[in-house]
């Protein structure tokens, strides 16, 4: 099956089609992680985006239920250099190709992904179309231009859960058999004694897993749940999740956060961090081609140590805009000095732009979940 990728600026790539036959539209971003394509497929933060993976060999180890970050893939489409028709791993349950086909995700492979990445690096992220049915490239470029821009779009609402629910661990983790894989858990399991209400703007399962590993009972609530309703649940702390799209239009969440601030401990990740920034009076801006990968050095200002971290964000909080907001800037990206984390000086609030839950990515920052736990315990006293 032949496929074409067309970008809004007219650049065309011709390759092989896999996954679902058909067409998909989205903002084209590249991710430089060497491992964890399945986690990337299923990360709701990728809603509205076509993902280019720089690792040329994708699909090698297949897919399995345990590694899902959500119950279905959220990427609109996948671009890769070579897509493995076979899978080889003791945990593999389904070949990546079939998996994406099942969920209607088109894939284009056998194209010069490095050329594409260099194009995006130079000209910035842009909209694009993958099609295995359309051959008229002009028409495709038109379609790309017609795609709704990310900026100013509230996607959190669309991916958020419709109804509140209690998080139960997603079944016995097949990974916990070989003892050594448990290393992933930074903390020994403790019985839940804290209650966290987690706003779902597109939450990743591993965040929930990490919270319960830290001994938290987690109630996941829709993005638009009011601060009052949340407080009514008597939480020990509130978590603001990651999610897709532009934080600015998500005004309702900023409102609620303002109301919650100071009344309960708050921990935000990614979009949650951006919403906090806005709620505390800061500004956000769009990065040229975003941060997507598992190798970003982030300096933790408290310890002076560098964490290798997992990133997935196109927007960021402008550090200067936070000057008046009474927060400390706690984490900085050493590659480009992007603000990656902050803590409020008086209120029990902190957040990071990157992904301490990793999955995929290094576990260097798992400790932040322990920090959140400690914060909640102090607040209780």
């Amino acid at each position, binding site marked *: 099956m032949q496929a074409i990728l067309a970008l809004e600026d007219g650049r065309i790539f011709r390759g092989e089609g896999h996954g679902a036959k058909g067409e998909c539209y989205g903002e084209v971003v590249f991710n430089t992680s*060497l491992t964890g394509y399945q986690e990337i497929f299923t990360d709701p933060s990728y809603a509205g985006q076509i993902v280019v993976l*720089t690792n040329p060999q994708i699909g090698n180890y297949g897919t399995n239920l345990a590694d899902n970050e959500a119950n279905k893939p959220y990427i609109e489409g996948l671009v890769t250099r*070579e897509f493995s028709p076979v899978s080889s791993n003791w945990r593999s349950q389904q070949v990546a190709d079939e998996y994406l086909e099942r969920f209607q995700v088109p894939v284009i492979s056998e194209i010069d992904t*490095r050329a594409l990445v260099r194009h995006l690096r130079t000209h910035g992220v842009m909209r694009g179309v993958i099609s295995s049915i359309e051959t008229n490239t002009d028409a495709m470029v038109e379609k790309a231009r017609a795609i709704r821009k990310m900026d100013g779009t509230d996607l959190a609402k669309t991916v958020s859960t419709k109804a509140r629910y209690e998080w139960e661990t997603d079944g016995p983790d097949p990974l916990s058999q*070989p003892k*050594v894989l448990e290393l992933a858990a930074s903390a020994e399991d403790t019985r839940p004694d804290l209650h966290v209400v987690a706003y779902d703007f597109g939450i990743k399962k591993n965040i929930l897993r990490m919270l319960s590993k830290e001994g938290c009972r987690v109630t996941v609530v829709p993005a638009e749940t009011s601060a009052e309703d949340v407080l009514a649940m008597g939480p020990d702390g509130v978590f603001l999740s990651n999610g897709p799209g532009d934080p600015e239009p998500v005004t309702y969440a900023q409102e609620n956060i303002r109301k919650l601030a100071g009344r309960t401990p708050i921990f935000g990740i990614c979009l949650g961090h951006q919403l906090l920034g806005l709620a505390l009076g800061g500004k956000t801006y769009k990065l040229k081609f975003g941060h997507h990968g598992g190798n970003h050095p982030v300096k933790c200002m408290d310890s002076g140590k560098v964490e290798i971290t997992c990133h997935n964000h196109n927007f960021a909080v402008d550090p200067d805009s936070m000057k008046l907001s009474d927060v400390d800037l706690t984490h900085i990206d050493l590659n480009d000095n992007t603000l990656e984390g902050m803590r409020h000086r008086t209120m029990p609030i902190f957040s990071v732009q990157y992904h301490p839950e990793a999955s995929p990515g290094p576990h260097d920052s798992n400790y932040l979940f322990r920090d959140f736990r400690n914060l909640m315990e102090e607040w209780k006293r």
Partner: protein
Amino acid sequence: MPRRNDIAKILVIGSGPIVIGQSAEFDYSGTQACKALKAEGYEVVLVNSNPATIMTDPELADRTYIEPLTREYVEEILRIESEMLREAGRGGKFALLPTVGGQTALNLAVDLSDSGILDRYDVELIGAKLEAIKKAEDRLLFKDAMTRIGLDMPRSALVNNLRDGVDFAGKIGFPVIIRPSFTLGGSGGGLAYNREELMEILSRGLDLSPVHECLIEESVLGWKEYELEVMRDLADNVIIICSIENMDPMGVHTGDSITVAPAQTLTDREYQAMRDAAIRVMREIGVETGGSNVQFAVHPNTGRMTVIEMNPRVSRSSALASKATGFPIAKIAAKLAVGYTLDEIPNDITKMTPACFEPTIDYVVTKIPKWQFEKFPGADENLGPQMKSVGEVMAIGRTFKESLMKALRSLETGKKIGAELLEPKRLTQRLVTPQPERLSYVRFAFRQGLSVREVARMTAMDPWFLYHIKEITDTIAKVGEQNGESITPELLRKLKRQGVSDERIAEVWGKPTNDGVAEVRELRYRHGIKPVFKLVDTCAAEFESMTPYLYSTYDEEDEAAPTAKRKVIILGSGPNRIGQGIEFDYCCCHAAFALKEDDYETIMVNCNPETVSTDYDTSDRLYFEPLTLEDVLAVYEHEASSGAEIGMIVQFGGQTPLNLALRLKAAGVPILGTSPESIDLAEDRKRFGKLLEELDIPQPPGAIATSVEEALAGAERIGYPVLVRPSYVLGGRAMVIAYDSEAVSRYMKEAVEYSQERPILVDHFLEDAVEVDVDALCDKKDVVIAGIMQHIEEAGIHSGDSSCVLPAADLAPATLETIRTYTRKLALALNVVGLVNLQFAIQRRAGQPDKVFVIEVNPRASRTVPYVSKATGVPLAKIASRLMTGRKLRELLPEQTASGRDLETGTHFYVKSPVFPWNKFPGVDMALGPEMRSTGEVMGVADNFGEAFAKAQLSAGQRLPLKGTVFFSVNDRDKIHLVELARDYMELGFQIVATEGTANKLAQAGLVVERVYKVKEGRPNVVDLIKGDRIQLIVNTTQGQDTFFDEKAIRRAAVLQRIPTITTIAAARAAAEGIEALQQHQTNVYPLQHLHADLPSRHTRYAPS
């Protein structure tokens, strides 16, 4: 934490001679470390016994000691240097960096520290502290450590005697792994399937372990094997540079495994678990700073992960990881050792981002080892826990298929891929039992229609890799059904994207000739199917790269437009191998340094990840590519497309580029220096013979034979003994000395195949002739002789395998003059531009003038260039490359050109000695001959020959005894020299033991000699004496077939007991002189810089680079 200002001086220890398990990678790491430390303004002192290294170039350290890597010599260096430091009075500490010189440096550092020497001179270990080293290297401490941090390891027990070993094996069950503590490349390690094997391997292992202990370990054969390259700084930042997956599963040493980066078959959860584990190991072992290598095994069906080992130093794998990612591990390690933290060091390649990150790559890297069992008949060719390969190649492709195929053709097996001699009947065995040819059998298996599952079951290789190999075989099969006309561009492109070479295509189309290959190339061009070049940038293009480190791939976009600067392409020497080793890489690097100074853009092409030449800051542009016509032409055409002035150097990379020279020239590539035609002429027996006649330079009488009859007739005519060999061979492959017609016919019938085009050469063998090696520079007009090296061993021992001395120890002035005349004549007659190497054999007859014969002429850089450069202080390769770009000797070496004098070596003697891999191939016959078998070399310096020789021997691992007993067993031809030799040893205070014949001869001469039985005669025999430590030195010259068995037993025992064995009379004489010198009990060390300063001034000395 910034630079440590409390340190003033740093000693860097190198890894010594090239041996199996420790190759050029440590010249690469050592060189990087020295450069980095010097750049930081420290006073750098270097010690390494290997002259053929870049790191021992005088510019790289403030003082460079080419001395034995033993406690006493390094102590002397520490003593002198710390004294100097004190006298300088500028304060500051003296530190020792032990982590860039492989296992050798690490063990030496431990020794120096345990024996209190470091304390005595107040020297601080940096990079890795003693405790950390011990914790990592001592298998038991390591196991405890792993248990403490909850990591799984194979069950094991440490034993120091046979019984305990057998008992434990009984408990855990066979097979078991035996691993000696503190040996490199797993020397003496092994895999035992039964009690008997266990006893054998264990006893060897206990012998080889410096601490006389071995680990017996549960086997995890067939598990997936991984390596992580880890770095840590003083602020406890830890990063993973690269993950490497072994395609050959557990059971085959990583150094003997085909490995792939990055890891391909791990999910993120598994990989991160491994990453966490590696970081824990790093912290628990306590490696404060620098790079380490942690190895894991993963069960393919349960994911159970166990730690195998960690190396608290840079390693072969970290060199590979550096080349695979563009992250210079050794360089950064050196900076971390002096206090910097990772976030303070910029990433060389992006410049904008810090070194504190984890490289991510958008291509696949494959490494394949190179073995040379053909040189060691009788060696066990099965691959196991002990490393046996002599070198390796690496290839970069956008996909695994592409990189695998590129790596395969980088190997230069000489065999056509797919056309290897395979034994279908033994397919199963060949798949199950790992041997060098296993991959060929995998491909063969697929051609035979076996399924991926079946092959996976037999090889325990991951099906993912096998699937891709099958895909390639299938595509090739498809193409086989087509031909040049019928094939579609799509299919052709697909094939090229899978990395298949034009040569292979020409083959499946039945035209494996130069024309056939050219036709395929034309066809490709017609369809516009050409490779593009992409960058290795550590970040998968997320940031702009400032460093042109390139690889070719069949993809869309080319990122590496050539510059308009005048440029020179230098072809490297490919995988390290016996006869073509690091010496050639040394020359290539020097060409790059010199021409960069002369303001050329220097472009390196090579495929050997271990080397300095493939370091991205050695040349202006680095192409990591196979050295085949196709790949080299692609590079040339790409570079030439800028229209800039361009030339190619083929003279420095050994035989590899030379074999391409004519075809490159035919394809229109301007070759610099000596013309390919001259090179060819020198190789062509007939034409070269004619040239010698014209110049009337004698050559051993010879004949050419294409049949047994011709050979016998020829031998009769020229007279026995004769030397028979195939034409066009390197390193004396398949050469044999025949003393009678029966030997000749045996050789012709059994040993070799030959043909009209490839006849057999029969030469009269010059007995007891002194061999001489000459290196000279020539610019078509003038000739300067760089060095006349007199071999210690007589002609008949390959020049690469014999020790030699500069200046020639005892050649008559007249003889030297003859050698000079012949050299000049030949260099000019061959229109040499650059370097030329000549070998002479000199027959001495009492009362008559010496007769000088030419054995061969190589119009190219030779193995001895670095050694001569170190001895004379003149960078020969630099001058040669300048000559090739049109500069003249009159300008570069004015005095010598005018006066006709050779380059001086001053008042000192420089002895070069070879190093052999016997300990890796127990049971292999150690007798030296015309076929080269040494893997590396060392140099000894002193103001008298004896001491220089003794030091060289010591560096080569032969510690000459000061007293005790010498065992003599010499062949009849050597008996004439026997008496005088034995007398020398007695005068030195030695007792003599000898076997029957030898003893009689000595007794007749009235010498006191103890008789001993030969092995077959009875007990106690000589082997019993050796094992009983009754013998300190063995002089055993080969006696041919009949006693062969005895010799084998003797030499094997000698290796195990570490008793120096000398196999020629000449070397025995030299040893006597050496022992005499040693008996003076001096330990003298000489920094190169001082030796050179004493030499008459030469402006080429220390040309800045």
